[in-house]
């Protein structure tokens, strides 16, 4: 019995070592780095103070928050409408559409930025065509600006939102619809008083995942604008592994702040999924295989990146 237990523990040691070495220690090292002075000796809060004082870093944070909020809301809106539409199709068609969304959610990061450069870059196909047709509306659009970045971010948010939201529509039972109709509720009234409240946890939870996904997205922005647009994730990258003088302490500080926002957003999702389960809607009503398929895409963009 004793030797057997020893064998069992032995099987766990490699995993424990790997997780310690490549996950826990680096996170702790980053935390401690954010509280150290530039020469790495003294414990201090000055790094955080410097971020708050610096217009440049605050702008990076503001840009990232704005782009994340906008792209998440846009992705959520499109995803919500399309998720509802998907439930109106036969299962065969529905599964094919979901498969397509799943595929395109793999199309993130560098290849995605590249595709958009072909379409809408300075010599992009559409850019030149619009010029030729004289569509002045688009002449002011610039892919390498805030609006262009947001547009590309929305592209990888939509499939993710769709995959996360569509199961919760199956939590709305046909009987409720019929009951509401019998009691004289119109379509709008049904959605306002029954449909949306039932969907609410799934919507807020999805918003959390989308927000975290956009905050952490790096590859797409980096491939599109390099260091020319001030975003938090890109700023961190250049502080730690850039060509200029690296400032690991500042990089750690900004990374801690970024991790706080994404952890908070993912925590929100976690709470909301639990609440949705109490409703008996959302996850719990779906076959496990489909749940797994959706859950495995939670990777940031890769996700992006979970993608990203």
């Amino acid at each position, binding site marked *: 019995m004793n030797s057997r237990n020893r064998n069992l523990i032995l099987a766990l040691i490699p995993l424990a070592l790997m*997780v310690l070495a490549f996950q826990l220690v680096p*996170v702790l090292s980053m935390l401690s780095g954010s509280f150290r002075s530039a020469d790495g000796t003294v414990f201090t809060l000055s790094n955080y103070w410097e971020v708050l004082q610096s217009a440049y870093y605050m702008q990076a944070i503001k840009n990232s928050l704005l782009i994340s909020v906008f792209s998440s809301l846009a992705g959520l809106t499109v995803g919500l409408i399309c998720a509802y*539409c998907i439930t109106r199709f036969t299962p065969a068609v529905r599964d094919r559409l979901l498969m397509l969304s799943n595929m395109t959610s793999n199309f993130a990061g560098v290849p995605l930025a590249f595709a958009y450069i072909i379409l809408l870059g300075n010599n992009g196909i559409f850019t030149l065509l619009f010029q030729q047709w004289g569509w002045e509306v688009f002449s002011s659009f610039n892919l390498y600006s805030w609006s262009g970045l947001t547009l590309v971010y929305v592209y990888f948010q939509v499939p993710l939102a769709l995959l996360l939201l569509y199961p919760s529509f199956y939590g709305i039972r046909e009987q409720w*619809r019929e009951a509401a109709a019998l009691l004289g509720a119109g379509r709008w009234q049904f959605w306002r008083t029954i449909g949306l409240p039932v969907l609410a946890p799934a919507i807020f939870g999805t918003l959390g995942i989308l927000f975290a996904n956009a905050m952490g997205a790096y590859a797409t922005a980096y491939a599109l604008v390099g260091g020319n647009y001030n975003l938090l994730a890109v700023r961190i990258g250049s502080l730690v592994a850039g060509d200029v003088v690296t400032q690991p302490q500042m990089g750690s500080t900004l990374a801690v702040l970024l*991790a706080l926002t994404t952890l908070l957003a*993912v925590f929100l999702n976690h709470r909301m999924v639990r609440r949705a389960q109490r409703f008996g809607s959302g996850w719990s009503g779906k076959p496990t295989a489909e749940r797994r398929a959706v859950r495995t895409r939670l990777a940031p963009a890769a996700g992006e990146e979970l993608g990203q």
Partner: protein
Amino acid sequence: MNRRRTGLMPRALLLGLMVYLLLPLLATGLYAFAEDWQNTLLPRSWTLQWFAEMFRDLRFLEALWTSLYLCLISVGLSLAVMLPAVFVITVYFPRWENFMKSLVVLPYAVPGVVAAVGLIRTYSSGPLDIAGTAYLLIGAYFVVILPYMYQGIRSSLLTVSAAELLNAAELLGARRRTALLNVILPNIWPGIIVSSLLSFSVLFGEFVLTNMLVGGHIQTIQVYLYKRVGESGHLASAIAISYFVLILLVSLVLMKLGGRMGRGGHHE
């Protein structure tokens, strides 16, 4: 599931969605085959020269090879470490599962940029100076695929009721090692293949960690693609579309395998 006929509105909206999602892919694909494409809706002439160039490009082939072996080593290492560990936790220490769950969700919640900061800080000085080496990257990759591998192996074990199988085999007189190798492993194999493939495709598309940790020294396919984006657009789109076709094939295999593995089919 409602059985009403699909209306015009959902059809139109989803058609729009499909066009929106496929347009960037289509553009990349057309660009990879286009010889002359200026100011027209479709290219004027077609060519295969970009693909020919791609296969003659030694740096590309090298990057492809680098990607392949780094991903294979990482997935292999992950299997070697995770299989015994997850088996022991699932079968003998189910109490630890809650702790494991919160541990494996961390890679989801911590973006790649943040993970890279910690890794660079830990390994660029001190006793373990492995900054910029493949060792550091493989370690980082191990953490990236931790959630997929853990959930995949765990659900395979639960699906085949590993604990009961093991007890039954031992009751019938099999040694534990024999029971593991001849009963448990063959039963969970399909599920393990699926999670390995999924992990592989995730790592194949990884850019952030790769670029920040070893970008200057080791070129994977993603890093190489990034370096080419500024140069010949046609060649880069040939690479991008080939990469995507590969990912597509992996996803298709995954769907097929996953479909065969799913128990009970759909309950609508």
